[in-house]
């Protein structure tokens, strides 16, 4: 990135000695491109201010009001935040469900992705085919169609119970309608989409120099030792990258819990992901101010957890050249 800011030696002057872009001539050579950058950046700048930064500021402001789309907007100070934290059991239910979803779903998905990537990385023929095969669920996983399918297969007479029944199991629950299991089906759906972190792991595994393994073999290391001493440390930056990415993604999961629970987050709020509760507050109760406060607590939550991940990374992520 540093090279980007180095001024080109011939900036502003073309090879025959004439100013290339006369407009910038008087202001020196730094901004030789004149108005062109601004012209090209106009759509992005409008988007930045009108659709991203503006709404961000507005959302922060709204979080201190009682705005509900219909009545008078009134400043209520920290009331929304206080109500959320002290007087809203569903907020805690939603936060709990989301934390469970992220804390169980993300590591499980990554372990699975890494295991399959390592199996595929042994120089098996047909790697591209297998890679595609395993990627397919990632592509489909966030669609409504798959969420619908999930709702059927984990229902009382769904595919899962039909298969288990064929193996002689009886008295099987309707997984999706049982509070103890309903969230697990959503976590399973998240794990099912392990294809994209797997592709990233495969790319990372290919970067590990083979001679490391050969040297370890000479020293008599077995596969287990090689995994712990070479693969994991060498791959740790990639693991960290996947961890952050999947964490941020899964905090924002919405479609699956909405479709599977019919928008309710039930049974008994057991699939009420945070984003779903926020949606309910904003667009079925029209408590826009309250929902905005929820949004900022979500940012805070994601921020704290990513911060923790970054802090912990000092202890387990090894970058080449560190040693």
């Amino acid at each position, binding site marked *: 990135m540093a090279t980007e800011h180095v001024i080109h030696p011939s900036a502003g002057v073309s090879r025959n000695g004439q100013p290339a872009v006369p407009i910038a001539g008087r202001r020196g050579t730094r901004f030789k491109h004149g108005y062109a950058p601004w012209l*090209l950046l106009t759509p992005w700048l*409008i988007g930045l201010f009108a659709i991203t930064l503006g709404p961000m500021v507005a*959302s922060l402001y709204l979080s201190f009001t009682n705005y509900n789309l219909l009545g008078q907007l009134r400043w209520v100070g920290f009331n929304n935040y206080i109500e959320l934290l002290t007087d809203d059991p569903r907020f805690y239910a939603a936060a709990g469900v989301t934390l469970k979803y992220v804390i169980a779903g993300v590591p499980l998905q990554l372990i699975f992705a890494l295991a399959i990537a390592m199996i*595929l990385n042994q120089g098996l023929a047909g790697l591209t085919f297998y890679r595609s095969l395993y990627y397919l669920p990632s592509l489909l996983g966030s669609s*409504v169609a798959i969420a619908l399918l999930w709702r059927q297969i984990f229902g009382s007479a769904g595919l899962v119970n039909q298969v288990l029944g064929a193996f002689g199991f009886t008295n099987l629950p309707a997984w999706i309608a049982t509070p103890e299991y309903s969230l697990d089906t959503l976590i399973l759906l998240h794990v099912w989409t392990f294809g994209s972190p797997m592709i990233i792991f495969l790319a990372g595994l290919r970067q590990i120099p083979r001679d490391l393994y050969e040297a370890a073999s000479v020293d008599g290391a077995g596969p287990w030792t090689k995994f712990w001493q070479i693969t994991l440390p060498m791959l740790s930056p990639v693991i960290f990258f996947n961890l952050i990415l999947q964490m941020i993604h899964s905090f924002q999961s919405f479609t699956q819990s909405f479709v599977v629970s019919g928008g309710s987050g039930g049974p008994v709020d057991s699939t009420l992901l945070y984003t779903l509760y926020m949606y309910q507050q904003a667009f079925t109760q029209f408590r826009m101010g309250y929902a905005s406060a929820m949004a*900022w607590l979500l940012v805070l939550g994601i921020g704290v957890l990513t911060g923790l991940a970054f802090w912990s990374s000092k202890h387990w992520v090894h970058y080449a050249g560190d040693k």
Partner: protein
Amino acid sequence: MSDATMQSVGTSTASMSRQLLSPKHLLAHAAIIALGLVMLYPVLWMISSAFKPAQLIFSEPGLLPRQVTLENWGQGWMGLGIPFSYFFINSAVISGLSVVGNLCSCSIAAYAFARLEFHLKPLLFALMLGTIMLPFQVIMVPQYILFQGLGWTNTFLPLVVPKFLAVDAFFVFLLVQFIRGLPRELDDAATVDGCGPLGVFWRIIFPLLRPALAVTAVFTFIWTWNDFLGPLIYLTRTENYTVSIALNAFLDSTGTSNWGAMFAMSVLSLVPLFLVFMFAQRQLVQGIATTGLK
């Protein structure tokens, strides 16, 4: 197959030909295929169930229907009172415009960031990076108020206009990285020949950007095709529904009584994704491996 794969396969060919039929590898192949089948089984079963009469869906875990019917397709097609073709056209229009929007707006912004010098560039670049990880939920409510104030609810504008304003900063970043990898000598040569910055973009950068633009197009399409929350908020009239919203509304309206019809429409809704999967695999894999796109 990417170049990197080619290389790694190339270097290990010698040992591979001997290993190919080793018991260890046979076992690995068997395990991989078995696991793949288990994973994809629900999807295959959904496709087969779309051809089954209702009662078989709840009693036949196998893939080969004992009894085949096409009734589900007709019922599903008219499931919401108006034909599903409406929803497919809506989804196609929104996804198509989103792809065009992202390609245009993100590529010009990326070119400005990667190649041009201007005031406040470091600050603006940092802002752009900062917006990549911003959760949509934070801006969802004010955005809704804004678009509602403009009278844009129940139109496609709230879903499409942001794409023409490069709001998906992720793609701007992806394209910036790609442009930085292109040799600057090409720009310089074009400048000497009298091209201004806009000419350099149009004649040199844009044509060379094709691989990265393909990645952008593929992922924009998949994301907008699958998008649920956006259309759920903005589209409330049935004739405006996208396929995702229509499927969900179908589920609401029939309860869970007509799975066959619902599966039929679900399978149809996945066809465009399958097509992308078949014809754009290289872009998918590159996009994920280099940037972590989902």
